């Protein structure tokens, strides 16, 4: 049976939630879609690492170096286990954005190298004019701009799956958008602006049908629900540590072994090599091939602690808790006059990020009134500018609760919205 989330107990683990903002208002943090707060267990783990075992990893034959290496590789195993993966399939990056660039650069790098040494690369990654790359109209810029750049460097064409007015993918077009010209399909699992949870398995299936590689941006799903990377049906899955209670400065890329093996390096330098001569070098096997330079060791340790914290709560319980808050928030917003939800209004296949606009009010002004009540939300295009345009709004206000929020937090947010309406007389 599910052990329900005990918000009061959890809050005690987060020092920042004890503080007040503005005129001594208790902090109501509803901006976890941007970044989550960190429990003490994470801060303690990182600090303990620095205080006892800090050293270069995979180098040096002294005890600290051994301990640091153990800490780093142990963290990899813990985090891999959390998503049902093998440690050797998990690459550490600085954030999800780097992870997605790693995927996109596999194509542009292989394409450039193929010009001078066709046999040095796997043809699956070589693009030419006539080839297409497919994304959706609800991508975060991190899963859009790198693919635009890949197109600019290779002559491939970017295509996308459009959206319905309800904020779902228009899957009728799936088979025509993804066709024989398609070489890679990269899709967000859960939209950070609309909250929509996409049927990525079906989309990845279509990608594989036409021989394309499949990438999933799981930034907003892995922190909020149980995810086994294999269930997504993708070849590569990207996400960030800082949105799942972990430190800033660490991201993840999971890849099917065979695909990682076939990918050329992205960032190159120390630790990702096998042999180096002045004239040429050979590269290590994944995941090392993609981890050049001194890695985010302390951050990996912190993230492993975050994963243990979430595991203790149980991701099923986390998802259930957020589902409840989402339903409540949707209901409360529907009751407010002049408020329009951008994204699915039914609490089905949707996560807890809830975006809305208020008639006659710019989101910045709404956000200011929420801030005045101690409520932290994000206003703007949420790095999904084309999605805003699709819905004819310049920006939205977004509530994105997490494990430390309860219904009372949503209530305070509603008060803020009404205060703004009253003040501006709309």
């Amino acid at each position, binding site marked *: 049976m599910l052990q329900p989330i005990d918000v009061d107990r959890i809050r005690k683990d987060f020092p920042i939630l004890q503080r007040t903002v503005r005129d001594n208002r208790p902090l109501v943090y509803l901006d976890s879609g941007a970044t989550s707060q960190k429990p003490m267990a994470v801060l303690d783990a990182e600090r303990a690492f620095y205080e006892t075992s800090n050293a270069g990893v995979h180098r040096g034959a002294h005890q600290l170096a051994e301990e640091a290496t153990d800490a780093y590789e142990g963290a990899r195993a813990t985090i891999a286990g959390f998503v049902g993966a093998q440690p050797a399939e998990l690459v550490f990056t600085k954030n999800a954005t780097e992870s997605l660039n790693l995927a996109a650069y596999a194509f542009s790098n292989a394409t450039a190298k193929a010009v001078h040494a066709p046999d040095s690369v796997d043809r699956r990654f070589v693009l030419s004019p006539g080839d297409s790359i497919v994304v959706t109209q609800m991508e975060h810029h991190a899963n859009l701009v790198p693919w635009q750049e890949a197109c600019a460097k290779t002559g491939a064409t970017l295509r996308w799956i459009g959206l319905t007015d309800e904020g779902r993918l228009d899957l009728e077009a799936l088979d025509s958008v993804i066709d024989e010209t398609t070489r890679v399909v990269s899709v967000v699992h859960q939209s950070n602006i609309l909250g929509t949870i996409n049927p990525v398995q079906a989309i990845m299936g279509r990608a594989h049908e036409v021989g394309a590689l499949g990438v999933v941006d799981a930034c907003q799903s892995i922190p909020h629900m149980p995810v086994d990377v294999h269930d997504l049906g993708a070849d590569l899955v990207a996400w960030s540590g800082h949105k799942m209670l972990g430190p800033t400065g660490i991201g993840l890329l999971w890849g099917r072994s065979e695909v990682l093996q076939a990918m050329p390096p992205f960032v190159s330098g120390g630790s990702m090599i096998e042999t180096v001569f002045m004239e040429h070098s050979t590269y290590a096997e994944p995941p090392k091939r993609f981890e050049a330079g001194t890695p985010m060791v302390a951050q990996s340790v912190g993230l492993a602690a975050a994963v243990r914290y979430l595991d203790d709560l149980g991701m099923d319980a986390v998802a259930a808790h957020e589902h409840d808050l989402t339903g409540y928030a949707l209901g409360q917003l529907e009751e407010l006059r002049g408020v329009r939800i951008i994204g699915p209004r039914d609490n089905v296949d949707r996560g807890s990020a809830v975006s809305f606009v208020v008639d006659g009010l710019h989101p*910045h002004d709404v956000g200011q009134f929420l801030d005045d009540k101690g409520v932290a939300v994000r206003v703007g*295009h949420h790095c999904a500018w084309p999605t805003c345009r699709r819905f004819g709004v310049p920006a939205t206000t977004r509530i994105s609760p997490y494990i430390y929020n309860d219904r009372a937090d949503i209530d305070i947010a509603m008060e803020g919205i009404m205060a703004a309406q009253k003040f501006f007389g709309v």
Partner: protein
Amino acid sequence: MNVEALYQDIILDHYKHPRGRQLLADPAGESHQVNPTCGDEVTVQVGLDSDGHLLVGYEGQGCSISQASASVMSELVAGFDPAQGDDARRAFVELMHSKGAAEPDEDVLGDAVAFVGVAKYPARIKCALLPWMALQDAEAKAGIGIAQEGTSTS
């Protein structure tokens, strides 16, 4: 400091009733500025009348602060000579970066003194500055004020 001190009456009034919100017939320079974090936009056009005084037109969409700032700015600087316009812009930029500690000079800034509270909200400073940045850029494109600045610094 609370939110009412930010949204002074003058700001609300300009937001709801923008002044001079239209483009020029024959602009000498134009600049379109965007606040990439929130998508606020403003286009400012400038020219000089036969006496060498500033003509200003604008258009935009965005939050109360950015749109009121555009309205206040255009009302203030239209009719100034370029050097006066520069003084006002510099004073406004300084006010925004004062963290709320400055005593704004109403003789130079007119209604724009009402934005003093914005300086306490760093995320809104960009909103207030957006039209002023567009003004500066539009003048640069039109070649307005350049000669003067060149002279004074050489």
